[in-house]
């Protein structure tokens, strides 16, 4: 009788170890995926000053728009610095800041339509290609991150793993959503 009990306890411990490791593995995966977003967002932010100074040369009277972009960029960079991966609050704040930045950048793209000289500038075209690429990378890494978060949450919330997750204080991770869908659609396609 004791042997049976001992066996059951042993199996239970084994199960706890396996499930715990699974949770840790999935948490590492989504945190790593967030690092990828962090890298691409940094690239996006680093591009902005160059973009603004290039546009400034052609569109001197658009100071307001350009200041808006710089401000949005600084705010987004601040959020990126403070962000704790997966935390609901900071994901929301980062998503909003990036959304504002995306809209402000959309304003620059729209503005470039009014300045043919700017659109024809080789440096501006190169910049546009870099920006298009970074936007695609941000989108791809965000999709990748959201998928890993979904997988982690699925493991976390299914019974009976959810009991374990509670015991070891694993918390639900948040996806990153940008509020800038129109802005991206508004961005003109640059064709070479």
């Amino acid at each position, binding site marked *: 009788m004791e042997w049976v009990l001992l066996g059951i306890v042993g199996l239970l411990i084994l199960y706890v170890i396996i499930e715990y490791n699974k949770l840790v593995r999935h948490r590492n995966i989504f945190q790593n995926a967030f690092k*990828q977003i962090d890298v*691409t967002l940094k690239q996006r932010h680093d591009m902005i000053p160059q973009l603004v100074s290039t546009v400034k040369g052609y569109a001197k009277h658009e100071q307001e728009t350009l200041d808006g972009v710089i401000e949005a960029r600084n705010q987004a960079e601040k959020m990126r610095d403070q962000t704790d991966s997966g935390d609901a609050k900071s994901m929301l704040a980062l998503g909003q800041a990036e959304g504002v930045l995306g809209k402000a950048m959309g304003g620059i793209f729209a503005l470039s339509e009014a300045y043919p000289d700017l659109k024809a500038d080789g440096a501006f*075209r*190169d910049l546009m*290609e*870099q920006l*298009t*690429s970074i936007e*695609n*990378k941000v989108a*791809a*890494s965000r*999709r*990748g991150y959201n998928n890993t978060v979904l997988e982690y949450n699925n493991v976390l919330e299914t019974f009976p793993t959810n009991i374990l997750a509670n015991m070891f204080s694993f918390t639900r991770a948040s996806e990153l959503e940008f509020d800038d869908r129109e802005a991206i659609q508004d961005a003109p*396609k*640059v*064709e*070479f």
Partner: protein
Amino acid sequence: MAATSSYQLGANARKQSRLMMTLFIFSVALIAAVIAALASVRMTGDSINQTEQIMVNWQLFGLVAAGVATVIVLTSVWKIVTMGGDGAKVAQALGATDINEITGDPLVTRYQNIVEEVALGASIQTPQIFIIENEPGINAFAAGSSADNAAIAVTRGALTLLNRDELTAVVAHEFAHIRNLDMRLNLRVIGLIHGLMALYVVGRILMHSGGRGRKGGAQILLIGIALILLGLLGAFMGKIMQAAISRQREYLADADATRYTGDPIALAGALKKIGALSLQGANKAKHDELEEARHMLFAELSNKMSGMLSTHPPLVKRIQALEPGFDPEINGWPEIENAQ
């Protein structure tokens, strides 16, 4: 054909690819069994008399079957090892040039950016990037036996004639080949074909040594002939199977590319431009090396090899899988204009 979702397309292609591989292994086993039977089955008594008494020497049967299988396997492995799985080496051998620094060419920069974007989307590491210069047609290939040593190459024509979305679709198609380990599968199939060709060589040797009128010479002669016939037949069947597997893998890669980019129209657009070029007879390869590697390319070089030995599905069918209503008679092929 009704509209098929890319997911279904992928599932179907996977199932059929598996079926092909099973068939291939089955035919190798069959060949080994036939040769072994020829060697081990003996008519006792006078074979001229009608007293049929069939004796099977099972030990000999097992020995010969194992021998035939070993010859096939060893030759295959040898071929696979010598062909090598390093994507960069394959790309260089095919006349592609490595680009790993900033070139200042906006088209090349765009291509490099696209490769990085798709790599991120497919979550595999960025492969080595190559261009096939002086090649005005639209084509591309991926090489390498795994994601670690993969290389991707596109022609200069693909850079100038495709727009950003279309080039992204083509690159995503090649990434799907890398991710699905199609290069490795293809390498193995080529290895197997060489293994079967080795039977032909062994058969030739047996024919020569068997014709010396020794005891049991007739049987050795018979085995020699069987080896030659089965080796040739097997290699021919192998080529047909290789082509069939390759065709399915192309559909699969198209479906996966659509999944990565979410844009079937761009891939269809790239294929249509290839169709338009082919009609003008302008999508041939200038490099002879490329002609040999036609099974690896994004699009078939010519329509000479249609049917069973064709390594790619017909272009129109590939387009229709992405854009169900397409009919070249009604919609026509697009005008090709140089982007730069």
